[in-house]
């Protein structure tokens, strides 16, 4: 029985996986397909993609035209359950409420976690991204390099399905042949953006996203994913056949009941459950790792949210994939006589070096895109192209004033009209109303292109989380307190984003409502708002300065692993999810190997 309630847990499992998102889903998948018995504990509720995904619902069918509220911060139809930057009964503390020093913590309390709503942007870290300190003297090198992870990037892309192209650009890796699905065709606004950006020396290439632009290769990929394991090949081939290609409609952040994009609940968990090796307990809020007399993890303690009772589960190996901050919280709350500062914290680095992505936004209005004929530009939810970081050389020579790069995501087109389609137009319409206003809305619809910079933050000593000495959540579990500070590398980067976006918009013949923000401290989005938080259990080559080793295993506890973004030693501009999955597959292989050698 794959879904088990906490009262009917077996006496012991091979592996407990805490969390069911990208890291937990991938770890459970890999372990189960290779025969390990896994118990997955998810803090949130069970979630049915089939029954709960609002695929074609329109904003008029939702309260407030589906506008965002604090209870649904990305709009009513966003897939997130019991989540956002505010979770009822589960507070956190910020040392300061000032924007510059605040970290806002996004969580979801549902099976599959944040993978149900994420943007599906799936970029590989490049060779520079694993050795940033060697390159420019800042931050930390990872104890692995690109070559260590490349085979796992290939596997993850083959498994989940990622569209994109191989362009051979600097620090923007190509995938192995056959890994990527074809990218969707660029639309009018893409081609205009690419044409004009090129004049500025800014390249635009196909985006990489976890969306099936055609059915997965169920004939050939299974053998590449699970060589020598015919049972696993059979299971994943059957599951790949059951996933539909993209319908070219409905936003991905609602989730996809056709299973045409990646979410843990539609890609990792079904085949893992079909293997018969996965048990899942939802509403299980893990708060502590249990340590045996031998110094090894013997299981975890959790609160059953349905009864409020404290429970325990036992296993030979524990994998934490609760999200970077939640994993740090569990470790810091796992205090004992042997571990008075929290578990796996002999370095004092648990919770340290928290990073998010640098974000800044500018929207332009482009007269060339006005009054176009009706076009269906829904596609795979936009993101046909993106701009990878293009100034590695000048940056290394110190010409930019900030050390790390960013990529550009942008959005435009005649997408489904919604709450904001015809609001705030006075700067263009002169305050028109009546018949003129109707004509104006028709004219300007689809003529806006919004640019989002996504840049690297360098880890610093001032950005971290710790246990708040006072506040507890509704389960009585001590909560996190955040400290946050950007360095000039980040704020100058945000100012550079603003200038670049202004230049591209001008090159497209467009204009902006407000002047470009030249003050990077005002241009940068607050910490946590891009929802790419990583670090807190960073991996390194030295147990005195890192929490986990090159295999994502904690230095202090030989059978305790971290499979979420916590282990990131740097936070490249590339969105972290694909790397989380590649690392989780890699650590799962490591666990399996040690189990076969009877080390675990």
């Amino acid at each position: 029985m794959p879904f088990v309630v906490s009262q009917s847990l077996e006496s012991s499992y091979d592996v407990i996986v805490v969390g069911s998102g990208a890291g937990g889903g991938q770890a459970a998948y890999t372990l189960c397909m290779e025969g390990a018995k896994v118990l997955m504990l998810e803090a949130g509720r069970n979630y049915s993609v089939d029954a709960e995904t609002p695929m074609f619902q329109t904003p008029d069918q939702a309260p407030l035209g589906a506008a965002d509220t604090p209870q649904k911060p990305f709009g009513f139809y966003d897939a997130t359950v019991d989540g956002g930057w505010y979770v009822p009964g589960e507070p956190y503390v910020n040392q300061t409420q000032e924007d510059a020093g605040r970290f806002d913590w996004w969580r979801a309390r549902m099976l599959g976690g944040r993978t149900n709503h994420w943007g599906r942007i799936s970029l590989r870290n490049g060779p520079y991204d694993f050795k940033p300190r060697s390159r420019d003297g800042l931050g930390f090198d990872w104890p692995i390099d690109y070559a260590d992870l490349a085979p796992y990037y290939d596997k993850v892309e083959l498994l989940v399905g990622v569209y994109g192209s191989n362009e051979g650009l600097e620090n923007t890796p190509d995938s192995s042949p056959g890994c990527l699905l074809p990218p969707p065709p660029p639309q009018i606004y893409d081609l205009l953006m690419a044409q004009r950006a090129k004049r500025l020396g800014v390249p635009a290439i196909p985006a990489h996203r976890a969306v099936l632009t055609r059915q997965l290769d169920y004939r050939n990929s299974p053998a590449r994913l699970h060589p020598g394991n015919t049972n696993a090949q059979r299971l994943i081939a059957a599951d790949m056949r059951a996933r539909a290609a993209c319908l070219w409609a409905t936003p991905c952040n609602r989730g996809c009941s056709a299973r045409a994009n990646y979410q843990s609940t539609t890609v990792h968990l079904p085949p893992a459950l079909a293997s018969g090796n996965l048990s899942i307990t939802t509403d299980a809020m893990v708060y502590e790792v249990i340590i045996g007399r031998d110094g090894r993890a013997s299981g975890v303690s959790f609160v059953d949210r349905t009864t409020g009772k404290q429970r325990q589960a036992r296993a030979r190996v524990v994998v934490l994939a609760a999200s970077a901050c939640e994993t740090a919280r569990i470790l810091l709350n796992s205090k004992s006589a042997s571990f008075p500062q929290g578990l796996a914290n002999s370095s004092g680095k648990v919770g340290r070096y928290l990073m998010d992505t640098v974000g800044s936004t500018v929207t332009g209005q482009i007269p060339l895109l006005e009054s176009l004929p009706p076009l269906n530009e829904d596609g795979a939810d936009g993101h046909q192209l993106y701009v990878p970081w293009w100034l590695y050389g000048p940056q290394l020579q110190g010409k930019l004033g900030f050390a790390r790069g960013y990529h550009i995501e942008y959005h435009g087109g005649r997408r489904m009209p919604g709450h904001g389609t015809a609001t705030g137009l006075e700067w263009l319409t002169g305050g028109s109303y009546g018949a003129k206003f109707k004509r104006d809305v028709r004219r300007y619809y689809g003529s806006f292109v919004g640019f989002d910079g996504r840049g690297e933050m360098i880890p610093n000593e001032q950005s971290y989380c710790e246990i708040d000495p006072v506040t507890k959540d509704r389960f009585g579990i001590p909560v996190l307190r955040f400290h946050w500070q950007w360095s000039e590398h980040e704020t100058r980067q945000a100012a550079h984003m603003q200038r670049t976006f202004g230049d591209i918009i001008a090159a497209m013949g467009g204009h902006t409502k407000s002047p470009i923000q030249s003050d990077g401290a005002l241009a940068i989005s607050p910490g946590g708002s891009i929802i790419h938080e990583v670090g807190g259990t960073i991996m390194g080559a030295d147990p005195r300065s890192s929490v986990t080793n090159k295999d994502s295993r904690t230095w202090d506890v030989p059978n305790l692993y971290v499979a979420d973004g916590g282990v990131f030693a740097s936070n490249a501009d590339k969105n972290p999810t694909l790397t989380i999955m590649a690392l989780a597959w890699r650590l799962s292989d490591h666990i399996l190997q040690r189990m076969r050698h009877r080390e675990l």
Partner: protein
Amino acid sequence: MNRRTSIKWVIAVSAAWPHFGQAQAPEPPIPVGQGYGTDPNLMKVYHPGDCWPLTLSGPQQRTTAALADVILPADAQSPAASTIGVVAFIDEWVSAPYPRTQKDRPIILGGLAWIDAEGGRRFGKEFAALSAGQQASLCDDICDAARTGAAFSEPARFFALFRDLTAAAFYCSPVGRSDLGYIGNVARLTFEPPPADLLKKLNLP
């Protein structure tokens, strides 16, 4: 006709919500049990009044309908705003328990009272009873905050917000989508490049 010719604008309320409009602000939280919650059913079709009681009075609804139709009147492509549920949408909005909607509420209610009072002061009738020309002469004074003098700055703020809410309701609707020529939100087998003649017209490769 002895009507009130001015109202006191309740601005102090808005100052209480410094993070208005910023989705990332975690404070102030909504008390549990209010609003539609953090786990609403996404599959059902909602109507104004389903999640919280509506609060506009009959006269307020009448003025809302009249002003919405001045902002989005019927034309050859689509009907007038009030015929497709815009009044109920605005009622739902100003009755909702969220920081942003609670900030908007006094602006809308104050503005509706003002525009009726101003109609009375100028023409001896409430707004809905004015002729089209009279309504336009009033709206022309407040439709563009950038051109409005100090005397009309708060009414102009109301008008901009009211126009935004009217437009939000209208263009969220099937009628609005059709008016804009939106042809998506349908399952398709393929996603095509743009038409060649359009690319040529725009000098795109």
